[in-house]
């Protein structure tokens, strides 16, 4: 059957994807030339971008271990992207063998790849859904099957909220998710910001413009704006801080200066 001329094309691998760019920053090859081209352009403005990604991964790893250490065994990772290495389920399952990890992403390629990676792993699954529609996530059969919402969940919103524009009301989405979570649940969050970037803002804006160009705007928020996502949560020490400063395993002074871009934090519901 011929596709009607006016029907929208849904999947277009000729357009860069932020999750494949992320993979490229991390030295992976799960990407196409369009992704690499966009990533290289962004890196022209911010050569240290890979270090920010690496810091994100390292923070996520520490946070998951922390949550597991606090007795949490269920993880809901929204905006999980392309699983490269050191993924939540690997970290979590290493800490708690019966950990359950639910990945959520709206990029169909990321979802398809995750499905391939997670095949045979009963403790982890992926669902194609969008952070902007929390109810669809919470009521998806995959989430209902894997996650018991009556028990605490660690909700991971790592390097995702800065891709949600204010027009799409990210605060309400985050609040709706919180309301669905049992007491003792945690919010693990990182967010891009001009604060902490070891460059003049004008240069950083060049990288932000690249994301604008690829129609995946990067929303840089201030620390205060980011802190608002934790409404309804009690901040876990040390609060909302640059990533290397959050419960570091090694001296933060040894970290790359770029790693201090943006903020990370963990909150816990009462």
């Amino acid at each position, binding site marked *: *059957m011929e*596709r*009607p*001329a*006016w*029907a*929208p094309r*849904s*999947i277009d*691998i000729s357009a860069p994807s932020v999750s*494949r760019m992320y*993979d490229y*920053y*991390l*030295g*992976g*090859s*799960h*990407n*196409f030339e369009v992704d690499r081209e966009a990533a290289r352009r962004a890196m022209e403005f911010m050569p240290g971008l*890979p270090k920010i*990604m*690496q810091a994100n*991964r*390292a923070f*996520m*790893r520490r946070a998951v271990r922390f949550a597991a250490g606090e007795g949490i065994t269920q993880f809901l990772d929204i905006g999980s992207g*392309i699983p490269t*290495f*050191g993924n939540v389920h690997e970290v979590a399952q290493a800490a708690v063998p019966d950990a359950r990890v639910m990945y959520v992403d709206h990029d*169909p*390629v*990321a*979802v*398809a*790849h995750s*499905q*391939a990676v997670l095949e045979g792993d009963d403790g982890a699954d992926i669902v194609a859904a969008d952070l902007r529609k929390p109810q669809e996530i919470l009521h998806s059969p995959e989430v209902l099957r894997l996650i018991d919402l009556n028990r605490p969940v660690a909700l991971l919103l790592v390097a995702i909220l800065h891709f949600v524009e204010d027009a799409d009301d990210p605060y309400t989405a985050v609040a709706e998710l919180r309301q669905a979570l049992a007491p003792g649940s945690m919010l693990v969050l990182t967010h891009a910001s001009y604060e902490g970037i070891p460059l003049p803002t004008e240069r950083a804006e060049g990288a932000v413009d690249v994301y604008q160009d690829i129609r995946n705007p990067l929303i840089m928020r201030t620390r205060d704006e980011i802190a608002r996502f934790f409404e309804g949560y009690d901040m876990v020490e040390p609060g909302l801080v640059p990533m290397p400063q959050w419960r570091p*395993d*090694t001296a933060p002074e*040894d970290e*790359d200066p770029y790693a201090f871009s943006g903020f990370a934090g963990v909150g816990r519901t009462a």
Partner: protein
Amino acid sequence: MSAEPDGPEDRLRRFATIWSRAVFPVTSTSSTRPEFEERLLPLARLLSEALRARSFDADAGRAAGAALVEAHCTDPEALSRTLDCVDAYLVLYCGEDGDREDLRARSARLQHAMAAGFAQALRERTLTEQEAIARAALEAQGVVAQALHATEARFRAVFEGAAIGIGIADLEGNVLQVNGALRRMFGLSEQALRGRSVKEWVHPDDAPQTWRLYDELVSGEREHYHLEKAFYRPDGTVLWTNLTVSLLRDADGDPQYQLALMEDTTERRLLNLRLRYEATHDALTGLPNRAFFFERLEKALGAGEGQRFGLCYLDLDGFKTVNDSLGHAAGDRLLVEVADRLQACATASGEMVARLGGDEFVALTTGPETERTVDELAARIMNALLAPISVDGRELTVRGSIGIVEGPAGERSAAEVLRSADITMYRAKSAGGNRFELADPEADARAITRHGLTTALPTALDRGEFFIEYQPLVHLGDGSVRGAEALVRWLHPQHGVLSPDRFIPLAEHTGLIVPLGRWVLEQSVRQAREWRDRHGGEALGPLRINVNLSPCQLTHPGLVQDTVEILERTGMTPDALCLEVTESALIGADDDLLKPLRRLAEMGVDIALDDFGTGYSNLANLRRLPVSVLKLDRSFTQSMQQFPADPVDLKIVEGIVSLAHSLDLAVTVEGVETGAQAEQLRILGCDTAQGWYYARPGPPDRLHELALVDATG
């Protein structure tokens, strides 16, 4: 692992630490540096052992290189730094006391092997990951395509299966896609429709705003519009649609396509037209009917200043004879032929022919010059009827009478015009037919009065516009008043007092005679009762009241009962009443008709045979009739006004009186105007008389006076 300070194990760890410090900054691992060092330690041991092995094998280098990639050191810089580190420190920290030259050579070979191992592992990892992401992309596309396919299939099914026609065109008007319903409506294939331009579909019946709305839509000023639109089909027929066109915009809100939804209303429209046609046309001849004609006539009469109208009202002469003798089917065929000929007479614009019903047709002409054109039209019609019409093998000669009305618009109503035409047509007919007459206001007025009286009759009775006058009946023997004849009058609000001959035939015609007759009977009997009461009855003898019965009343089933009820209500005896029936009403009367009269006669009501001698007087029949009085028509007595009277008339009257008396009938004479007359009639043996000689008809009190005079005088 605890290590002896500066022992081989400690030295190996120091090598690993240096190595990890050199490489960690260029890795992408999420591990910490100490964790990373732990990963490098086994690799360092592998290299260390290979360096000092009895028989050298460079494969350890390969393995170490590959392991680096596995530890997510995919950046070539990690290899470069690793090789720098191995070159500088491996022999130094792990060489122990071996031959330096030999160790350096082995280190170099290990580095070559590491580079090869790294490159191969990276190549494999890269290929694997590329393959994985490509597969994921394909799969994702598959999933999306499948979902899209399902949506599309559903959409396509809706699109194709919709009963409504759907078409999509771009903003230049090029048709991109159409569904089955639309193709069927147009009777065109998809190929024939696709690529056509919407703008070609101009139709003369397009509403004036059609293409303005279109332009507004394609320029993005309008989201949709809705109208009725006609299209030409390839076979030249017309497709009527209920059309809704919507603008489709893309995700950014820019106008992209136009979507047309159309419903085929051709049938419905045809049906409406047919219903309209049927409602406005005569089924037999196909000519416009009365309703349609009135519509057009009203339009013509409502036209502006300077506009006139001319109307020919045609009625065929003797059409009834055709129907009666040849049958209705032949009559119908005749009418159809006449209709066709008439139609051919009125082909100019502003002209029309209609059939009003039966054999009545009208032709209308309009415009500023109808004074001339209407005459021509009438002449054409008369001419068209000249040639005989062949029906069932017979050549029938058709003639018609035409009434013509012509005048300026805006003065008269359609009904008035048509009535005038009707009257004029009758004038033509009564002048012998086969001609046309022009309307004449005076002739109209006469006819209109007759018409007006007929329509005013029913309400006149309700409004009490009728009254009764009484004319005394005098006994010829002694000159005493014996009774009176009741004569009804109509006090018309416009025309004044009207005598019965003006309105009784109309009342007969409309059937109003029955209630009117009943009213006259009741009033008269009441009056008789009043006289009786005032006169004290016996002294003067009973005053009898004569009331006329029309033929209609005779056949009315309520006659006997009404009469009985009236007599009972007024308390009068039947012998105080005489009902007068005209001779003509009883001609050929059978027993059924006579039965009510007989019943009344048996009761004691007198029955008088009125106007005797004017009809076909079957004297032998008299025996059979339940009559007790003969009223001789005034024509017999007229000659007796002169002196000497016509001897033949005298003989006739004498004979009738003798005959009547022999049948035991009393004889009353009418129209007595002179004393000589009265005397003559008395001599001839007549019993009672009435006429101007005694008294004209008058109010009841006059009779009362007369009776008193008579009684005292």
